[in-house]
């Protein structure tokens, strides 16, 4: 019996290790290569040395900064995504609170409409949205990257689900004391709803951090070009140097990695709850 368990354990770890190698080798290669010279990267391709960090040269990194405004891309992405997150939290949670707790004409119809909107894939409205943004004269502006994505039907839905499950007593007693709805929302509801706010913020951040198609279309000017689009341009910009691209990719991966490490618990919970609720 005991021997059997040991065998099982060995089998489990072997499987896990092989799989971990499969899932990690590209990323390890990316990071390790970013510190090597171009000839080293190519020479190492045929051997295990491709994954061994035996040199630590920062030349590729300085090369990236000479060739593209990497920091600018990074700041653009961070800025526009953060603004979407912050404005989105306000707008969507307010709407969700009204749907969850207030009485008004047309509420159930409006909410059903919002739920129905979840289904519309962004890709199918891309072109008319572009024409609308053009009509507003917003192409190549931050507004184009931000404003269309503040309101989010799914996030309204998530917030409402959470608010419905909050105990009403606190809000009712505050109302007895004469507090306005807005005040109740900010001083009582928001503090009680921290988990859903963090989850929605994270999911929104990660979604829009990965945005590609819309920024590609809505921005042609480098001054408002986000990181993902910048990476794609750099990748196709001659001369293509493996080392430079690897350094840029490594730097582009770090911000999300940091967020993930710090908010891992909420992130995983968010993914899971999005899955469970549906």
């Amino acid at each position, binding site marked *: 019996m005991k021997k059997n368990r040991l065998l099982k354990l060995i089998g*489990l770890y072997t499987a*896990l290790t092989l*799989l*971990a190698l499969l*899932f990690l*080798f*590209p*990323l390890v*290669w990316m990071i390790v290569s970013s510190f090597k010279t171009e000839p080293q990267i190519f020479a190492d*391709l045929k051997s295990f040395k*491709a994954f061994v960090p035996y040199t630590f040269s920062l030349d590729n990194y300085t090369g990236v900064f000479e060739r593209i405004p990497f920091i600018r891309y990074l700041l653009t992405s961070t800025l526009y995504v953060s603004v979407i997150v912050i404005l989105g939290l306000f707008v*969507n949670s*307010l*709407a969700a609170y*009204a*749907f969850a707790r*207030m*009485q008004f004409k047309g509420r*159930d119809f409006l*909410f*059903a409409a*919002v*739920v129905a*909107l979840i*289904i*519309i*894939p962004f*890709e*199918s*409205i891309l*072109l*008319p*949205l572009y024409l*609308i943004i053009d009509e507003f004269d917003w192409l190549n502006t931050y507004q184009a990257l931000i*404003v*269309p994505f*503040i*309101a989010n039907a799914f996030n*309204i839905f998530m917030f409402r689900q959470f608010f*419905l499950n909050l105990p009403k007593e606190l809000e009712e007693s505050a109302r007895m004391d004469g507090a306005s*709805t*807005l005040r109740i929302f900010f001083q009582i509801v928001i503090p009680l709803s921290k988990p859903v706010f963090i989850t929605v913020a994270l999911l929104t951040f990660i979604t829009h*951090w*990965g945005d*590609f*198609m819309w920024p590609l*279309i809505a921005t042609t000017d480098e001054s408002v070009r986000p990181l*993902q689009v910048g*990476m*794609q341009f750099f990748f196709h910009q001659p001369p293509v140097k493996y080392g430079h*691209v690897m350094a840029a*990719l490594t730097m582009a*991966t770090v911000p*999300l990695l940091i967020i*993930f490490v710090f908010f891992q618990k909420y992130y995983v919970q968010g*993914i899971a709850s*999005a*899955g*469970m609720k*549906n």
Partner: protein
Amino acid sequence: MEPVTQKTNESRPLPTVSPKQKKRKNLFASYGFVSPAMILLFVFLILPAILALYYSFTNYYLLTPEKMKFVGVENYKRLAEDDIFLKSLGNTALFVIIVVPVQTLVALALALLVNQKVRGIKFFRMAFFAPVVTSMVIVSILWTFIYNPDNGLANSILNIVGLGPFQFLTDKDQAMYSIIFMSIWQGAGYQMMIFLAGLQEIPDHLYEAASIDGASAWQKLIHITIPGIRNILVFIAIVTMIAATKLFIQPFVMTQGGPLDSTKTLVYMVYETGFKFRDVGYSSAIAILFFVIVLVISILQRKFIKESTE
């Protein structure tokens, strides 16, 4: 999603004692609360959706908007005869048909593996999840290097086990499969996390009881685990399916739809006909068709989940 709207009425009784004035004030507040979101959703989601439908029945060409006129179902007829469109539809279908079952099963297998209570399991969870944390554009660029037929890691590694060399992205018969493999590699960790949450909800005593009855690991999987996560399984399959029909970034970054249109997809066509060829009418027709496909998948989801909960 459940039909959530039904439950709302019972949750809050009307404030019977409230005076009329206060009621009006509340009404004002509630419209104030919802209107920013509603206005934004209207302008940036509903309006473009309506426009897409409208344009799909016109010959709107971006450079000559004044000549726009209603052409009925002309664009849709054109679709049926457009070989490149049909090819894109087929490519998208191929991607969906392989990715949905394979990625779901891989994710489930990974979740079962990392659901063990053994030392260091957190590291492995992170490892499988790491590609998800990297964005799709970055992963696509990285894998274009890996798939390089002459100077790529993929051929070096496959060479060790005596396979290859392959042309990968530069061969019309291999390009889509190369994208499929990479996409599963990138996305499986995400579904794994959802499965894992589902697996952890299954009460331990069910497994203990089965062990006492002498059930094998396989029997436990079939009779306890799978039924326990059935809804999640359906949910994941559908979500993966919808995401897979949206395939765009990988072919855009890695192959530009080539070679010989072998990696062109529906969304790629929407992009290309709309923004490269500026054929708004035709592009909108593809977009609407794409929307209908997504809609049908979602309706199937609803049906499936309802049936399995009954």
